[in-house]
């Protein structure tokens, strides 16, 4: 599986320059089937740019970006700007880039908890509803590579957990590789096999636990962010926490809430999680 032939996408010292400034440079990245790679980093650190290079939307100004042949890609972009004059129902949106039967549309929406939206107008959806619909559209393509640019923005707390569970499940059942971007340090670390921390370049990389102990990571996010990772690991180990606790642990910015969660971050059977994902 880790055979280089099976690599879905590979960036090699890739960088993009716009108007004389480097948006990001020197990125090495590979996504293999069944692997979840998560990009984290502050605003403007080049996460979306890196994802767009991996997708072939942006051509690297230096280095190379290679994708496997005949790759089916499912992409959830960060935002969607649809003019109000465009009549677009969810049903139609799901079939935007690939033909789907009505049953396939319903099934995809059910998986993301958006089955009631099939005949809604896309421009009337709330932020969280739109995310669920976009994710449904991407997974309905049965992609080899799924690229998710902040897939849970605007999604409510319980929905967020469900969506991350779904992402892990898709990886396990369909065996696709997933490249994901998130600001949410707590939750993202759930299923990630590899975390790449960007800040205009690759600041550090590794498994979630390694990243949590990395000095560069702490320099970028502050020392309290490490506690955020620990909180996350706790949650990962206990997926069925009652709502109250989930909400509690899921403060959107780790540095502002990590202190009070220390007592939750005790469990550490991360290795079991890894073994299960690898299987």
């Amino acid at each position, binding site marked *: 599986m880790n055979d280089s032939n099976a690599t879905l996408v590979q960036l090699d010292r890739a960088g993009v320059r716009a108007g004389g400034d480097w948006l990001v440079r020197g990125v090495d990245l590979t996504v293999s089937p069944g692997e979840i790679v998560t990009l984290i980093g502050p605003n403007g650190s080049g996460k979306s740019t890196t994802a767009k290079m991996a997708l072939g939307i942006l051509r690297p100004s230096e280095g190379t970006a290679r994708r496997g042949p005949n790759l089916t*890609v499912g*992409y959830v972009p960060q935002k969607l700007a649809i003019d109000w*004059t465009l009549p677009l129902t969810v049903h139609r949106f799901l079939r935007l880039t690939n033909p789907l039967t009505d049953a396939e549309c319903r099934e995809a929406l059910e998986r993301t908890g958006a089955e009631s939206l099939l005949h809604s107008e896309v421009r009337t959806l709330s932020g969280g509803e739109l995310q669920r619909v976009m994710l449904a559209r991407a997974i309905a393509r049965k992609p080899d590579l799924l690229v998710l640019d902040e897939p849970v923005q605007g999604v409510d707390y319980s929905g967020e957990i469900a969506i991350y569970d779904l992402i892990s499940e898709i990886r396990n059942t369909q065996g696709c590789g997933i490249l994901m971007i998130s600001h949410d340090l707590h939750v993202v670390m759930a299923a990630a096999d590899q975390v790449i921390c960007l800040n205009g370049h690759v600041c550090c990389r590794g498994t979630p636990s390694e990243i949590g102990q990395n000095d560069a990571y702490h320099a970028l996010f502050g020392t309290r962010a490490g506690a955020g990772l620990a909180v996350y690991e706790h949650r990962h180990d206990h997926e069925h926490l009652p709502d109250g606790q989930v909400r509690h642990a899921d403060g959107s910015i780790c540095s502002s809430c990590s202190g009070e969660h220390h007592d939750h971050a005790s469990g550490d059977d991360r290795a079991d999680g890894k073994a299960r994902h690898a299987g």
Partner: protein
Amino acid sequence: MHPATIARMGRHDMLDDFFTRALVAGIGVAIVAGPLGCFVIWRRMAYFGDTLSHSALLGVSLALLLQVNATLAVGAVSMLLAILLVILQRKNTLSSDAILGLLSHSALALGLVCLAFMTWVRVDLLGLLFGDILSVTKLDIAMIFAGGSFVLAVLISIWRKLFAATVSPDLAAGEGLNPDRTELIFMLLTAVVIAISLKIIGALLITALLIIPAAAARRLSATPEQMAVMSALLGAVAVVSGLYASLNYDTPSGPSIVVAAMVLFVISLAPGGRFVRSLLVKRQGDQS
């Protein structure tokens, strides 16, 4: 009787009447402009359409200078301008809004100056700017229907990709649909429509025929395809009523058509429009 006159009588057809020619040409233009106009408003490219149409005068003056067919020259100049726009936009030097404004007015001014220099030709400037139903020839009709069929055929063939690129260029690019190429084709099609609409509606108002019927169709449609068809129908209605008004009240044809389209748009805002749409939505729901 002169033999030529007899021969002409033998071949007498409805296109011998100037007004019928204008009607046929106008309806042809409207049917093509409708679906294309939907994409213009979905993609927020109204100003782009304006820029291309303003370059039409430059095309006309070139045609006069080089003694070639005006429609072909206008089409060629519009296409070149579309390509120039794409290149300039990729350079990221000025905002695309500023680039459009710059090219739009430069092209219009350049066309007017060129025409003024050519003192040896008499040009009906008002007719070029606002349309002239007296000027439509059978050759124009042939070009409208040939060009129009071509545009529609290409538009249908790229419809799916263009629609995906309109909803989200990034998404289309990420999933391998090559939106840049599709968008360029769309721009070139718009240039063709501008070239064939010039005589009926005039350089200054061509964009109105792209935008107003499409905007009027919005409230009456539940799907993109319905909106495209509805826009073509409304455009045809606007052209026919505008041309009749132009004939009866001796008003220039372009503004008359635009006023008729505007009236249709206002009507579409009435509560009845919502009713029509609810019927269409219901029918679509039944199908799926």
